[in-house]
Structures are given as C-alpha cells and as structure tokens.
C-alpha cells in the first residue's frame, strides 16, 4: 500500500480499502526501519501523525471529502511547523520550535494531509548534495553511497524510498528538480509567485519557490491544487484565477511544439544522458509532438548571475540569525560583538558562510554595479531568451542534471558543486515553472528529464509529464532498498 501514488491512496481510503491510521502506521514503521540508513528525516512526528491520522479517519466517517484527507506527507525542514522543530538544516536553528505554520503547511493540513515529519536538507537550502546539512547527509535510496541531491534531498529520498506518500520541497536554483532527478521521483517547481512563501525560511527571496516531490505527474497536479494560490501574507504571491491542475492532464499532445535548447546538447553533456533525453523526446513525438531546436544564447551566463543574486539576498536574509532572540547563541558572550561573531561563526556551516561572504561582497559600496546590478541585467536577458523561445514552442525539454547522482564526499570544491545546477538555475532567474520526471538510468542511477513551460503554464507542464508517464514506467520503478541496507 505504501508504494502507491497519492491518487491511488485517495481511492483506497475513499473505498475503505485502508484507513489513514493503518497507512500512517505503515509509513512510520518504514521510517523506523530505513531512516537510520537514509537520514531522510530530521524530525519524525510519530504521536501527532497518528493523532492526525485518526482525526482524518473520523472526518472521513463524518463525510469530509478534503482532497488529501488522511494522506501522509513529509515537509522539508524549512517550512515552519507550529510546535515542531524547524531547523532549515542548520545548527543555528537547532532549538527553534516554530510558533506558527507556513501557508503551505496550513493548506496541506486543511486538505487533510497527515504530517509524518520534517525532511533533511542542505543548510538553508544552500547545496546540491544534502551534504551541507548540520544533521548529516541524507542518502540516495538507489545507492547509499551516493548523494540524493539537494537541497530538498531528504524529501526526494523519502518519496523514492516510500517513507512518505508525498513531500514538499523548495527550489531556488534546482533544489526540487535536481534531487527529484537523482532519486527517480517527480518534482515540480511552480512559477515564481504561484505558491506562498509565508513561513518558508528564506534563502533567496526573489528565487525561492515551494513545490511538490511525489510519485507521478498526476500526484503533482493534486498537490499543486492544494499548494497554489494567492496569500495576503506574501506580497509576491500572485492573484490568478483558481485553476484545477488535474483538469488538462489528459489533453492530447498532438501538435505540441517541443524545443530542445542547442546549448544543452553539447559535448559537455554525458552522452548516455543525452541519449536518454532523445529517447524520451521520441516518446513525445510518437504522441504527436513536433521538435525544434531553440536558442537560449545567454544560458551560460545564468549560473554566474545566480551566484551573485542568490548570495546577495541570502546575505541579508540570514542577518536575523544573530543569537539575540531565538536559535543558537554562543556560550558566555563577553559583549555584543562577541555574541554576534561567535553565534554566527559557530551556528552557520561552511557553505552558508561562504555565500554570506559572497553576497556581502557583491552588495558592497563600489562593487554593487559590477556585480549585483550586472547580474540583474543578465537575469533580464535570460528571461528574454525564454520569452522569445516560448513564441516558438510550448515546452522546452532537456536533462535536469549533467550527470547521475554523484558519490558522497566526491565533490570537494564549490564551483564544481555549483555546476550541478547548470540546467536548472536559469528557470529560477526567469521565474518559470519546471518539472523533472524520471526518464531512464545511467549506471543503475535514475536520470531526470526537465520540462519547462512559460509563466504560469503549469497545467501544460503537467499535461506533458502525465502523457509521458502514461507511455513510460520509469516513475513506477522503486529502489531495491533492502539490498542497499546491507551495503
């Protein structure tokens, strides 16, 4: 039962085939069995999950038809959850119990979801491997010696290993799509402004966006239905007419125009991955899609611009972690400056400190024009590239990552790590929606196909992904976890 999709579980619960209590118990048991090896969860909420499950069953008996009633979910640990430890993967929040719920959490709860716990992540969502977590790296269920990707690595690993039915993640430069690709699950980064950021611990405000990690495109549509919508607590959330993202899943792809960016299919791309994506695109062609090569001339500038803008915003977003009001405070500060210096030096990890330094530098007097302002100009160019491309095509397809999941501790330098996000980062700069869906294997490790649509065209994205999943079964494959456990 725990291997089923959310869509299937909803049917099973509705028909009485199972109960939320039984389901929740089953996931908790599986977490107990495998989380030691996977380290996907930072916090497991056993008692409250069971209580919520019983409540969901009671509500169902009372006639409730909430869309996710009784479905067990895991939240990335940067969503604030009332009364539950919320760490953002950092030591500096090792003791932070949030007094309020993020809007995403609140909406999931209102939809009847049962919260199993909080998932592991790179510290403050800064990373592509989950290795920057203060709580230890999460592992890839397909190979415990590999990283699950990041920053939403815990969520991706939990979904892949069936330690939950569905999970939330956030994506600032690829943090939903890249771990989804590495762990062989379906991940959706919505358009900027589609989902409220209230209660999401900020990394880079103008890039951060929450989305689902789950077992199918069909599930992603269900989850987006719950997560999406304007929120008067987030001024950057966008007020659009309500939309049912499940409604167009089965639209025909006949006449769909698919763009393949020539910049993505170069000699630098692993040829096995290139072949997998070409085969996947072939499936779409068989469904009636036409394929054209497109030009994204500024795509190679995106990474550099991102590594100015994101750290700049992060450097000030993280100023509030000062040891004064909550979170980690150093022992026996001798004065205010000492309190600040040591609380932050001891509380933040290396990668976070590195990005604070980069961002502080980029915003400094005398450097602002050369870095921050120039990066914003590039951002505009990147956005324009996509706008032009979408005049020609409906979706853009490419690999999610340049390689399959890499080994734990195998990447030592930051720049190599940053290059992991080469295909995902431009979307955040442009604010566009993107998905990663499983499309094959290289060396026994899952490979993701990235599908990109124009602003607020998530329905199109989900339509294409679902049709692809109707004719392929990559998304239904499961890692052989037991064997790995021995490894």
């Amino acid at each position: 039962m725990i291997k089923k999709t959310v869509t299937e579980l909803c049917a099973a619960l509705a028909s009485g085939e199972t109960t939320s209590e039984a389901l929740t118990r089953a996931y908790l048991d599986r977490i107990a069995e495998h989380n030691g090896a996977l380290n996907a969860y930072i916090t497991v909420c056993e008692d409250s999950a069971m209580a919520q499950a019983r409540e969901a069953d009671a509500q169902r008996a009372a006639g409730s038809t909430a869309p996710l009633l009784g479905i067990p979910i895991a939240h990335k640990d940067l969503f604030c959850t009332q009364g539950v430890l919320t760490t953002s993967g950092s030591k500096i929040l090792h003791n932070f119990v949030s007094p309020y719920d993020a809007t995403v959490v609140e909406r999931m709860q209102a939809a009847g979801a049962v919260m199993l716990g909080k998932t592991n992540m790179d510290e403050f969502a800064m990373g592509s491997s989950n290795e920057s977590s203060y709580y230890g790296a999460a592992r890839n269920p397909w190979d415990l010696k590999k990283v699950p990707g990041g920053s939403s690595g815990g969520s991706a690993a939990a979904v892949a290993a069936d330690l939950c039915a569905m999970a939330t993640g956030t994506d600032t430069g690829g943090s939903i799509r890249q771990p989804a690709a590495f762990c062989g699950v379906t991940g959706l980064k919505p358009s900027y402004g589609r989902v409220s950021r209230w209660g999401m611990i900020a990394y880079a405000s103008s890039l951060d966006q929450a989305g689902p990690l789950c077992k199918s495109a069909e599930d992603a549509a269900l989850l987006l239905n719950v997560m999406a919508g304007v929120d008067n607590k987030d001024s950057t959330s966008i007020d659009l007419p309500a939309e049912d993202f499940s409604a167009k899943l089965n639209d025909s792809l006949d006449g769909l125009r698919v763009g393949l960016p020539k910049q993505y299919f170069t000699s630098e791309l692993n040829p096995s991955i290139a072949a997998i994506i070409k085969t996947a695109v072939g499936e779409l062609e068989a469904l009636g899609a036409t394929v054209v090569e497109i030009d994204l001339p500024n795509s190679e500038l995106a990474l550099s611009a991102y590594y100015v803008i994101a750290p700049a915003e992060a450097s000030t977003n993280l100023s509030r972690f000062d040891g004064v009001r909550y979170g980690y405070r150093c022992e026996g500060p001798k004065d205010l400056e000492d309190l600040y210096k040591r609380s932050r030096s001891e509380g933040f990890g290396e990668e976070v400190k590195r990005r604070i330094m980069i961002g502080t530098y980029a915003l400094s007097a005398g450097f602002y024009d050369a870095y921050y302002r120039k990066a914003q100009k590039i951002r505009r160019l990147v956005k324009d590239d996509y706008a032009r491309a979408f005049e020609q095509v409906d979706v853009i397809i490419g690999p999610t990552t340049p390689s399959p999941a890499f080994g734990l501790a195998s990447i030592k330098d930051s720049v190599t790590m940053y290059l992991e996000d080469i295909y995902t980062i431009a979307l955040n700069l442009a604010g566009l929606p993107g998905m990663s869906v499983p499309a094959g294997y290289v060396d026994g490790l899952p490979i993701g196909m990235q599908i990109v649509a124009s602003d607020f065209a998530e329905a199109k994205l989900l339509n294409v992904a679902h049709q692809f999943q109707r004719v392929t079964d990559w998304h239904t494959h499961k890692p052989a976890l037991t064997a790995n456990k021995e490894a």
Partner: protein
Amino acid sequence: MEFETVIGLEVHCQLATESKLFSGSATQFGAEPNTQANIFDLALPGTLPVLNEKAVAMAVKFGLAIGAEIGKHSVFDRKNYFYPDLPKGYQVSQLDYPTVGKGTLSITLDDGSEKIIGVTRAHMEEDAGKSLHEDYQGMSGIDLNRAGTPLLEIVSEPDLRSAKEAVAYLKKLHSIIRYLDISDAIMAQGSFRCDANVSIRPVGQTEFGTRTEIKNINSFKFVEKAINYEVRRQQELIEDGGRVVQETRLYDADKDETRSMRSKEVANDYRYFPEPDLLPIVIDDEFIEAIRAQLPELPDARAARFVGDFGLSDYDAGVLVASREMADFFETVAQRSGDAKLAANWVSQDLQALLNKNNWELSESPIQAERLADLILRIKDDTVSGKIAKTVFEAMLSDESSVDAIIEAKGLKQVTDSGALEGLVDQVIADNPDQAQQYRDGKVQVIGFLVGQCMKLSQGKANPAQINEILRNKL
C-alpha cells in the same frame, strides 16, 4: 572673518497608522515592552512584510501638502546593519525611489517676509525598536514595540541660514503634519524627531563647509540651542586654525553642548539593495486625486482667510493658525460670539496664558470654545465689563456651570440702574471733596480718579461709561 550658517534638517515623523508599516501589530505609545510585537516584528524565520496602504496614503497626503512630486513607482530597499533592536538585521527604507520627491514650504522670517525652503524628499521607512540600558545590570533590554512603526523621513535642502530659521521650518512642518492629521508629532514622545546637519562658511563663499550631524534633539527649544552651540563650536574651531570633522554629534540638553558620538568616524556600508519581499509601490492618478480631495485647509490658506474674513492682523492670524486645534477653537468662538477681534484677543492672550501657565493641551482646558464665546457675548451686551469678564474667566476654571450662572451666583452682573449709580457717585463726591473741587476748578483729568473710586466702591460692577456721565453731570 564673518561666517554664514548652513543648515539642513532631517525629520523623522511617525505616521499615525493603527498598525505597523509591514505588520498588523498595534503602534500605541507607552505599552508594556514587547506587547506590540508579533512574529514578523520579532523577525522570526519565514515571516514576510505586507505594506500598510494607510501609511502610503499618509505619505502621499504630505507630499501633496508641500506641492511635491509623488513617486508613481517607489521602491523599498534594505539598509543592512546589525543592532539588537533591529531584529531583521536590516531596516526597510527607500533609497533611490522615494514616495515623495521635491517640494517646498514657506516660513515667515522675523521681519515678516516669507522664505521658501526646499524639501528634497520624504521617504517611508520602518522604525527600529528600543534598547534599554538601565535596570538590567550589565545587560541590555530590548523592547520591540516601536520596531516597524512607519516613519516618514522628511529631508530639507540646506536652505536654512540660522537656528531661528531652522525652528521656524520645523514649526511649520509640524503645523502642516498636524493639520494633515498624519502623525501625533509629539517631540517628547519621539513621534517627531529632528537631526540637524550644520556647517558654516565664510560669507560670500559658495561651497559648503564640512558639516556635522546633530542627533538627539527632542524639543523646538533644543533645536535652536543645539544649532547655536554647534555654530559657535565650529566657528571657534576654525578661528583657532582647526578644521571641522564630518561626524555625528549628540546634543546633551543638560549640559547644553554637542559631543562626538564616536571617537573615530566609521564609514558604514549599509549595502542597500531593493527589498525582494515587496513589490514596487505603484501609485496612479486616481489614488493621488482621491487623497488630494481629502486635503484639509492648510495653515497658510487659513491665515489668509482669517485676515480677509475676520479682519485679523497677519500676526494674530499667524499665531492662531499655527495649531489646527487652536484655529478650530478660535473659529468656533468667533462664530458663536459674532466678534472675531474679541475672540482673537481672548484666545491668543487669556486662553493661551492659561494653557502655558498650567502646561495644558488645548483639549485639557476647562474652558472650551462655547463657554468662552458665551462670555464674550456677555461683554458685548454689557452684562459684564471687560475687566469683570476676567474675574468670570477665572471663576470658570473651577466652576463648570454656564457663564450666566456664574455671573449670577457671584453677583458680578454690571450695575446699570441709574438710581443705584447716582447714590454711588454722591457717596464718592462726599468722600473726596478736594478732588471734586479740583475738577470744578478746571482740572478735568481728575475725573479718572473719581471714576476709579466709584468702580472700587461698586467692586467693579458699575458700568464705567455711565458713572463717567453721572459724575460730570453732578460736578
């Protein structure tokens, strides 16, 4: 060498919104520490700002009142620095695109002439909390009630040439803000704060001298004193061959001096950049016109009307319109009594003296406009003389009954019965035979003394004009 003083003022005015600039917390003054600070004000992770539209409307209202350009696309920026009473580690302010651009206001100089002072800009920003250093024995307490309260920072051009001009500008600004009802603007409570940029230069020189910024000035009186002190200090420094260092100085009212806030000048780099959690404020013409339609009559227009409609002098009109409450009070008295001149005198002199003496706000006065008008009506219909009216005025402070009831109860009604007055006059002539004779001998000015005696005998209640006539007849 003769020097010219150059002053520019930065005024921080707390906007009187019910809630904060970016959160729903209340903004009342004097609440228990940290009772008006919610999760956003505490900068809990994941919280986001939501702009208070009323603050924007107030800023625009101010802009229109000083004839300023309204920024149709204004942008909030983060100003980054660490301090315990700044929970987010940055203050949200406006750097390049303020809501209010260039405007002007006019001040009246001592010689009665008008001078136009330029306002460079007025931008919105959030206030910080307060650090409390007393009562915590080597630690500091943090009160975040004030954190996030909306401020309008109004920056003047360096157009002011003396401490007196600075005070006149500040008072005019204060008056306009009170008329607009956008701030309590109480200096002592910090809802109207002033920093002064002061420099001097030899007369005739066009470049500005090096300026210092004086902070912590919390009354109009101290503005004048602090600037005068600073001008003297800079002048002495230059005359002694030294030079002025650009720095921030703190005014100490107890010692009446300014002193350097830091030993060495630290160049702060605030790393301003556009606040990504907020969208730019877009203000359209419709919004601006709706606010323009709500603008009250402002002090200059009102003074002109007082001069035109009521025949007041420029000076009297200027005094009365300085505060909106006082001008409203005056207008009520003038209308109800039908005598604007008497109303102006009573309001600007007797009433003002009463308020000054007791340190009362106008609203605290036991004599409100209606009763004062009633008193003036009794002067006009000769029920009491102007002099007795002052006694009635005194009595009204402790007696809440009507003016007529007080006059009746205290027996202060003017005596106009000629029979009674004649008896009084006969008595005075009998008591003062020498003076009576002097009058008869042609020394007519002695009549004043005799009238005075009659008034004294009547305890002031006799009608002096009638007494005068009867005396002349009898002598």
